[in-house]
């Protein structure tokens, strides 16, 4: 694969994950750094939504890449690199949740500070819209925090990472039907929370 030049505006050939992994296994650290750059945001997003805490999610994300780097010699390409990385991350999240569990659910996400809210506001966004948007996120975060870990993880993998039922089943090590059950029950709980808070009206379906 021809390596392009870095720099804004120049044509750059994007190497596949497989090629970057092969180069990394051959001693090319920059290739692994490129993998980090490519996957750090999705991995952080996964950890954040599963754990619910920003700082701890960053720690988990960093540790996931560190473990992947150390285990790279043993990675034979039996699965996609991303799937392998997701599995490492989910295992770390599971370890974190076991360590920090108090009531059987993850900790309620950190609260909203007015100063933080003011910082989020767009130049022309009315304060009422900003507050409404933040309220919705608080309801979602609380609902997700109250779910069993496996239901929450299934929703995160499906809704925010676009995985198929089969891929989730492989990651969670369970049958396909179990994934669907977890997804349905989790979404039903979130839906009830959104209806109670008034963010969701019970749908009225008109027969045509």
């Amino acid at each position: 694969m021809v390596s392009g030049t870095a720099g804004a505006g120049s044509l750059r050939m994007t190497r596949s994950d497989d090629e970057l992994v092969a180069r990394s296994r051959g001693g090319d650290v920059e290739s692994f750094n490129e993998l980090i750059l490519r996957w750090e945001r999705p991995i952080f997003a996964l950890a954040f939504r599963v754990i619910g805490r920003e700082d701890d999610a960053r720690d988990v994300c960093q540790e996931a890449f560190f473990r992947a780097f150390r285990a790279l010699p043993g990675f034979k390409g039996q699965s996609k690199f991303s799937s392998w990385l997701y599995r490492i991350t989910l295992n770390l999240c599971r370890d974190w949740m076991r360590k920090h569990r108090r009531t059987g659910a993850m900790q309620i996400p950190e609260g909203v500070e007015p100063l933080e809210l003011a910082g989020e506001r767009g130049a022309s966004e009315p304060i009422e819209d900003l507050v409404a948007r933040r309220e919705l996120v608080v309801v979602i975060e609380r609902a997700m925090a109250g779910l069993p870990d496996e239901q929450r993880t299934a929703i995160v993998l499906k809704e925010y990472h676009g995985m198929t039922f089969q891929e989730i089943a492989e990651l969670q090590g369970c049958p396909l039907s179990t994934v669907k059950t977890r997804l349905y029950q989790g979404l039903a709980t979130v839906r009830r929370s959104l209806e109670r808070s008034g963010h969701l009206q019970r749908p009225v379906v008109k027969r045509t």
Partner: protein
Amino acid sequence: MSSPFQCGDHEALLAYAYDECEPAARDVITAHLATCAGCAEELAGISAARRLLAAWQPPETALGWQLDTGQRADGNASAAAPWWRQPLPAWAQVAAAVLIFGAGLAAGGRASSAPASEPVDVVADWQPAVAAIENRVAAVESAAADHQALLAGLSSRETDSDALLRQIRSEINASEERVRRQVAVSLVLLKAEENYAQQTLTSDFQQLSSQVQYILRGAQQ
């Protein structure tokens, strides 16, 4: 051939919502939804909840890690041979791999992919080193902000006392307005929290009441 879909099959509706149905099953479900208000409502509820879930986004936090094997500053790279394949003990392999935090590690979450000027040795325990760096950056930023404020004040200083008073009053008014907005936002959020808690309690009470009534009816029979 039997129908692949049974009315009320929530998991099949879920697969339909996520477009992971077999084509034959999809056609059957589509036809069923046109005549079954219950299933149509269930699907609409799932879809509506999914749309709202999209609002939950992770924070824009600083990432930008890089892997450094501790190569010399003069740029001389070690031989191309894969170093981790050598029979090194585990502690040596770990010592050879150091994670560097990007410049965007500074508080406030400014994203940056530029490498830090000083690599941090994280072999033993990186968290105190990270905290130290963050504190340093925060201190520098605070000092810079103070200097900026001082310069701004000096540049706008007026010898006319009335003009100076007007400026001071304007600053105070702006500050009061910011505080008023923050209080208003806090009050709105508190109210929203209270409403949510009340709705949750009401729902739980109704559920409990129904269960008690059910038990009493059973006892009376």
